[in-house]
């Protein structure tokens, strides 16, 4: 079975199977867009939480950490009810579109980005704080400095978000509907092929998905190794 799957994966890739390319590209698009937006939201939230002491900060950080464990199916359900035609945002007509999938993944990934970047920046803040206060570095300059100096650790954070996005199926299948040529991505296609008993094909798709994740991870690992040598991590 497994060797069949590898062979099948090879065939699909070599002949650049049109259906495969379609779902691969859509997977990348949905994951990339949701990751981008969640970074735009999550990084500043993490930075603000890391640098400011305010009443209830501990509770906020705890809640953010807990949200990392949001069950995708539950998120999918909630987003579905919001976007449903009979729901509050039904008039936007977003259900069963890639946009809905982006929204659902956003909800799942943003806490990961926020919580992990908060941790990274908090550590950096402890290290740099006295020096920055000594130089009277303005707040915004300090935040930018943290984000840049933490770039390699943040890369790992973003990688965690990417991993969650690309492998997610529970939420996107509910809000996307796994519609052929419209909202079918790698993970939902794997679910479909499994339900059709086409296990070799499902595994093949899985192998391709894994390879993609491996390549991304390998690139980040190389960057981090180089950074370690320079003392940037």
């Amino acid at each position, binding site marked *: 079975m497994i060797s069949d799957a590898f062979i099948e994966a090879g065939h699909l890739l070599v002949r650049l199977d049109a259906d495969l390319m379609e779902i691969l590209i859509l997977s990348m698009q949905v994951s990339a867009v949701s990751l981008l937006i969640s970074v735009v939201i999550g990084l500043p939230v993490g930075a603000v939480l890391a640098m400011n002491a305010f009443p209830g900060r501990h509770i906020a950080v705890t809640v953010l950490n807990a949200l990392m464990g949001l069950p995708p199916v539950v998120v999918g359900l909630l987003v579905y009810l919001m976007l*449903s*035609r*009979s*729901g509050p945002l*039904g*008039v*936007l*007509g*977003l*259900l*069963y*579109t890639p*946009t809905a999938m982006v929204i659902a993944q956003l909800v799942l990934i943003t806490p990961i980005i926020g919580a992990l970047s908060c941790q990274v920046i908090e550590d950096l803040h402890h290290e740099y704080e006295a020096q920055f206060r000594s130089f009277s570095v303005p707040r915004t300059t300090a935040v930018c400095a943290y984000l840049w100096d933490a770039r390699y650790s943040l890369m790992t954070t973003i990688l965690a978000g990417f991993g969650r996005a690309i492998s997610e199926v529970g939420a996107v299948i509910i809000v996307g*509907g*796994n*519609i*052929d040529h*419209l909202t079918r991505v790698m993970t939902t296609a794997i679910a479909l092929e*499994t*339900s*059709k*008993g*086409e*296990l*070799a*094909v499902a595994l093949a798709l899985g192998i391709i998905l894994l390879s993609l994740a491996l390549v991304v991870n390998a690139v980040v690992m190389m960057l981090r190794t180089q950074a370690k040598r320079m003392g940037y991590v």
Partner: protein
Amino acid sequence: MDNSAIRRVLFALLVLPCITGLAMADRIIVQSTTSTRNAGLYDYLLPIIKADTGVTAHVVAVGTGQAIKNAERCDGDVLLVHARASEQQFVANGFGVERFDLMYNDFVIIGPSHDPAGIHGMMDATGALAKIAHSKALFASRGDESGTHQAELHLWKGADIDPTQASGQWYRETGSGMGATLNTAVGMGAYVMSDRASWAKFGNKGDFKIHVEGDLTLFNQYGVILVSATKCPATNSKAGQQFVDWLLSERGQRAIASYQINGEQVFYPNAR
């Protein structure tokens, strides 16, 4: 990023889908059972429908129970399932315009080739189930209020047996779609009831084969309903009606009949 750029991005993200939604007046959402999707019927029919009527049907195949609930939430323009009683209730509650018979096929009882309950060749589905219960052979049920599940429960009732008493023992309720249930059944060597088309197209048969078929009680009727614009104002009634009309038309019915798996017809059109 300045304010105007932010406004433009928000516009693109939120409004564009609405605009494209309006522009695609020939787009409908069909809430459907999984068996028609898994059998490959939609892959076959939808391009023909698009060519004939210009209607693009997006099929959300989730299983009868969920499909009906989704349609009640107005998240579909057309409902295509195979649970007559539930469909009639759907129309009676005002969610559907009218229910039409679309096509039929049959259910089959499948199991491991060594047939632990000894039901092979039986012509009486109810009797076969009784034998399974009696021998406590493993049986995998959909358990998800789908058309198949409801038909299965009807048969148990006919045998005067409540299998849910043994839920978790020999009666295993997967709560999943047909494909997942078939995978589970093959995996644990359990008997299972499936529609013929799903089984025909299924790729993980293992050593399973059909043991019971042909009983009239295994009749499986599919129905199609246009969602009511009264209860659901956002329904694309025009395109939805075109879709339904095409399926019930002579052309549509012939197309359904011409669909084959492994050289055999799997759906029998019976619209009146």
